[in-house]
């Protein structure tokens, strides 16, 4: 390990201990670590934006590239300049033009992607769950796949029924349909509880792996220090 690696490992070890100090409650050491992390992240993002985006993709085409690229690069430069006016209350309206362009493009991309990439494929997947012929193509165990499809279908409908909220119409007594919906909603509640358990397990697994990673790094540092003293 080089000297820089040792410095980095030492800082990592100390900051890890400071984060672990949250175990005894919120304290200044933990908060200092948070502030350092936020500051370093913001600084690094700014450096990346300057050296990876602004200089190579905006300024260099204007000063180095041919005329066509220069003309193409002027438009984002103008829009970026207009966006800076957002910091002034007086001239903020000028920045609405690039802002509307950004919002419009982002919304179009997001909605288009959600429809073609999630909504339609997931609807087809839900419908294909009970398609026996398709199941035979993808899975030899057709019965198990159909059972899986039935469970998913029940879970989907029951979860939707749980989120069915409405008011009593006309007569104050709930009718038979509403009683059915509430009954199915109880089943949906079970599926939702299982889903929350699944989410918790995933988050705990990720956090536990992160803890193991930090412990391994700290142990490696301590073993390296001990190795230096023992040599």
């Amino acid at each position, binding site marked *: 390990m080089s000297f820089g690696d040792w410095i980095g490992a030492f800082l990592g070890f100390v900051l890890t201990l400071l984060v672990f100090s949250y175990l005894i409650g919120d304290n200044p050491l933990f908060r200092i670590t948070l502030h350092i992390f936020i500051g370093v992240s913001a600084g690094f993002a700014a450096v990346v934006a300057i050296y990876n985006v602004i200089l190579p*993709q905006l300024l260099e085409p204007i000063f180095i590239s041919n005329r066509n690229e220069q003309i193409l690069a002027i438009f984002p430069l103008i829009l970026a300049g207009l966006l800076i006016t957002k910091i002034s209350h007086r001239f903020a309206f000028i920045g609405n033009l690039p802002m509307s362009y950004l919002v419009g493009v982002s919304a179009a991309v997001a909605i288009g*992607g959600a429809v073609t990439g999630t909504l339609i494929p*997931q609807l087809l997947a839900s419908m294909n769950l009970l398609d026996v012929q398709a199941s035979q193509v993808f899975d030899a165990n057709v019965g198990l796949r159909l059972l899986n499809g039935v469970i998913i279908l029940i879970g989907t409908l029951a979860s939707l029924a749980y989120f069915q909220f409405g008011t009593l119409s006309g007569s104050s007594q709930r009718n038979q349909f509403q009683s059915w919906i509430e009954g199915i909603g109880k089943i949906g509640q079970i599926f939702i509880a299982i889903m929350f358990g699944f989410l918790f397990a995933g*988050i705990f697994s990720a956090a536990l*792996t992160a803890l193991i990673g930090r412990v391994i790094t700290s142990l490696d540092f301590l073993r390296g220090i001990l190795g230096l003293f023992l040599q």
Partner: protein
Amino acid sequence: MDQISCPSCGKPNSVDNKFCDFCLSALHPESSGEEVFGAPIPPLSGENREGLGGHESDAEAPDWLSELERSKEAEPEESLGTEADEKLPADAVTDWMSEVSEEDEGKPEPDSAAPFLPDQEISDSQEIPHWLNDALIEEESPGSIEDEDLPEIPISSDAPGSSLEDLPVTPFSDETLGDLENAGPLAGLKGILSAEAGAARAKTPKAYSSSLRISSSQRAHIELLTGLVEEEGQPLPLPERKALSQQNVMRWVIGLVLFVAVLWPLVVSSEQMPFPVYDEGSSEVNRLINQLPENARVLVGFDFEPGLAAELEAAADPVINHIMDQGALLTLISTSPNGPILAERFMQSTQSGHQYINGLDYINLGYLPGGAAGLVSFLDNPQGTISFSIDGIPLWETEGGSNVPVLGDIDQVTDYEMVLVMVDDPETARAWIEQLGPRLSDPLELTSLVLITSAQLEPVVRPYYDGIPQMVNGLVVGLRGGAAYARLVGGEDLLSQYWDAFSWGTFVAAMLILVGGLGYYVVPELTRTAKGQDKVEP
């Protein structure tokens, strides 16, 4: 109409008027007040009698007034109050008053608290004065009576209050009329408001105290209100935190137990826990990588944050290792600002054994700005989206292709044999799947999409892998997916360290949840049962 001039002001008045309409002076000085109003005028002093045209002598006063004056002179102190009323002469009491008084003496006094209801009828035994009887008869007449239809009721001198005799009389005196005016046009008159008295007299304004005169109870209320307002502006002191609260103790115990469970396998390097036998998603990824041709081009997205780097690096280590073993050329890219540096770190730390050369075997394109929009631009037109690598190497200087061997003739994303994304954020994962999935849905496209995700992301990405049509072709989830992949291809060095600690940590956490849940539900129940038995036994 005949008119007469006022002797006092000279203005014309009707002959019928007794007094002037303008100055109220008597138009006929010889007429007395009794003739005008039918009521006696209070006796005045000699000067006022002359000025107001009053009685010339006591001989013209009525008898009852003379008697009253004499009685006043005899008993001046008893001129007020009910006793004086009782001693009024019999002539001064009208007939109806005497009737009422006689009836009241013979009857019990009615309950004054009992209300008189509108529907309540007056019994025959109750005699009503004739003037009130007339009013009741008018009220009982059917139909509404307009004001203009009402007959003009003459004021009877018999009715109480209808004559000036019944009005309260304030006798004038020298004191009430004030001083005699000595100068000016009003000389000789009394009761004149002085025009110069207040203005001419220079007085020092009276000194008033500025202090508020309040009672002790008002002062107490003011102090209470002031205290309440002042308390609103003062921050409340935080409640004192107990150093050894139950919550803190539980937190320390759980943290210590988990820490020991994680630390112990790492210290002793036991490696007792076997890797998972089979994972469908990992097996599918293994199959796809095995099918890669030689020098296949693989786009690798590093879209995770440093906080979850340990999990994703451990899960991706065997997969990337396998891809490199296949001799694939890697293009690294990230839609997160932290991604490029994490990609470099990953390549240098975990894959240093492959001796891949930057620019020749792999290229790091760096940060791709613009989020989903930038991703769409890159997927459709990589050459127009990113011009330089993270090291500043120009990427597309050659006409119709790249001068970098890794990129070759890449024109769009479908020119890659595989797209592998390491991701920990649901939105980023969905952006990759939603934007890239439809482009790979064509059966003729041979590009496959593989995701290596954090365990917390599995509920989001699993439906894309399990569904038909399949939007994600291979899925490695968390440490478990990586361990399953490592079991398939070998290379268990890094994961073996993690897997033991992970297994023990998960087991201990499950036991803590189980024990905690049992304690939460069972202990109160047992306590309640024990209390119930204690109550029954005595």
